[in-house]
């Protein structure tokens, strides 16, 4: 089904919001105003928003530490994400989790760990629970190309396939696992080909095309909902920043980044929208202003929020 005007604008809004958030975060990091590391997904906006926007209330996602943007269509508030980066009690982990390791189960977002893709089996288990109770819900797990080399990735795909679980495995192939290029990670060209080894559908999609990602995810989600089976999507894209904030990213040829800059998913989507008769600069301006205000409010909120009380260091280890 073709997305409606409202859906097209929603996806545009979330892409702008995600990028604006990361740009502000990067500035705060360079200014030394936030503790800890940052892991940016710049250049991958279409992969995140196109996929996460294809889900419904009740579905769950398992993002990694780079995947903050996928949380936005799930209703994660940028104020709370910013507070997490500041290590404030108003962040979802109340200052306990590292900055980019956040989520909110009430919004269907798992809180990841750094060992990837540990939440691939966890997402399969969420799908197991949905199937167990006969619920019309789907789990979607994210990871990058790097994590597809680990055993948990293969165990999760096989387990979900054997048990026919309603889960979508979404791989964002951004060409590098930290500094390691695809050719040192695997001998195949398309990670989606691995799906055949588990007897499930696999599909490669242009990760910089938000509508293509959205369509592919809808199809995979529909597959999960109707046949109760998993599938694999590989979104091919490019990480436009280093692995983490400290990474000079000098292992990627400048020419390659310049090429990918031309394929920027937001510019590309704007070109598409500009071709539609109802889209105009006013729409763009309204969204840009809204996003700018939200980011400013998020920083103000985070800075005004209290830090955790040191006396609480040992509380909450157990329920």
């Amino acid at each position, binding site marked *: 089904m073709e997305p409606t005007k409202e859906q097209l604008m929603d996806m545009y809004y979330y892409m702008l919001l995600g990028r604006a958030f990361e740009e502000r975060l990067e500035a705060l990091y360079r200014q030394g105003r936030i503790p800890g590391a940052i892991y940016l997904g710049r250049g991958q906006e279409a992969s995140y928003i196109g996929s996460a926007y294809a889900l419904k209330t009740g579905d769950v996602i398992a993002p990694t530490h780079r995947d903050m943007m996928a949380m936005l269509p799930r209703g994660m508030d940028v104020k709370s994400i910013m507070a997490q980066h500041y290590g404030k009690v108003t962040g979802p982990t109340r200052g306990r989790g590292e900055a980019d390791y956040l989520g*909110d*189960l009430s919004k269907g977002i798992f809180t990841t760990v750094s*060992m990837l893709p540990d939440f691939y089996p966890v*997402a*399969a288990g*969420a799908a197991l629970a949905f199937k*167990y109770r006969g619920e019309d819900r789907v789990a979607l797990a994210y990871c990058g190309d790097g994590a597809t080399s680990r055993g*948990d990735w293969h165990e999760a795909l096989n*387990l979900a396939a054997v048990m026919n679980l309603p889960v979508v495995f979404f791989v964002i192939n951004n060409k590098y696992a930290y500094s390691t290029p695809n050719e040192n990670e695997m001998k195949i060209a398309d990670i989606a080909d691995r799906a055949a080894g588990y007897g499930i559908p696999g599909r490669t999609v242009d990760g910089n095309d938000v509508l293509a990602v959205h369509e592919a995810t809808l199809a995979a989600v529909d597959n999960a909902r109707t046949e109760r089976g998993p599938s694999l999507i590989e979104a091919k894209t490019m990480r436009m920043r280093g692995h983490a904030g400290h990474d000079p990213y000098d292992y990627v040829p400048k020419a390659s980044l310049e090429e990918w800059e031309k394929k920027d998913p937001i510019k590309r989507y704007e070109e598409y929208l500009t071709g539609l008769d109802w889209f105009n600069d006013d729409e763009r301006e309204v969204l840009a202003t809204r996003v700018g205000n939200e980011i400013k409010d998020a920083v103000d909120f985070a800075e005004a929020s209290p830090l955790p009380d040191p006396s609480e260091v040992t509380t909450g*280890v157990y329920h």
Partner: protein
Amino acid sequence: MSITEQKAAAGMELQSQESTYLDAINQALREAMEEDSRVFIIGEDVGVYGGAFKVTKGLFDKFGAKRVIDSPLCESGFIGAAVGAALMGLRPVVEVQYADFISCGWDQIVNVAAKIHYRTGDPVPLVIRAPSGAGLRAGPFHSQSPEGWFAHTPGLKVVAPATPFDARGMLKSAILEENPVIFFEHKYLYRRLKERLPKEAYEVPLGKALVRREGNDVTVISYGAMLHKAIEAAEGLAEKSISVEVVDVRTLTPLDRETLVGSVKKTGKAVVVCEDNFSYGVAAELTATISEAAFEYLDGPIVRIAPPDTPIPFSPPLEDAYLPQVVDITAAIEKLARY
């Protein structure tokens, strides 16, 4: 108070048949699954086959493939899936075929399950059953007692029952827990212990040690299969007029320090007997606990008895030399008693 006295005090009517330690675990699983449709079992060969040790025997026939799930061979995969199911409101009970294989699912336990609640406040009602322990001529990969690894990990509860009564009651408590519990069931005890269990369902609370045998001269602290060797040693020493108190730790995390320390304050002497190997292990923690809390009450050095720091050997004379024996425990207690 002995277990029999406990049961009598609780006024529980007993089953006519005796139950083994293994039967007791099966009964707890069956009860929990009858009481709560959210409880399910996942593991290798747990369904049609009834488990490598037959602990889940009969459950597949009663509850079906949906609730007794035969998984592919993937400890990390099915432990991770159990965490996901727990976060979505189910109450999974995982069987790791041998405790030795739990390391294949290590990361899902120590980095995923154990670290969720501290960060997000979400409960993780997950039980991982792990048949542990040596004495069965099973060699380095089917004999380990890896409870120390997990007892050292914040966010996990770690239990190690020593009797059929406790195995059933503590497994019930573990399934009712909102935290991940690693349930070490000692496979040497599976078919060697028998007792009549209550007819009705009951729970044995986690985090409570128990004085199994009262005495005045020396406290011996142990758990699991070693507890029974400690009791045998204590009974033998009674003939030499050495009065030995035996404390069953039962739950390693959270540790009931009060009961351990209370006993040592009474006797003034302590021997710690563990199957976890000697260095940096459970015995070290128990010893340190006593040293910190009861130093001024001690009339002699705290003695640690634990296997040497080697892999667990296969051949009978080697395995017998590896495991603490009644004679070793007896000698240590006697020496300390005369200190």
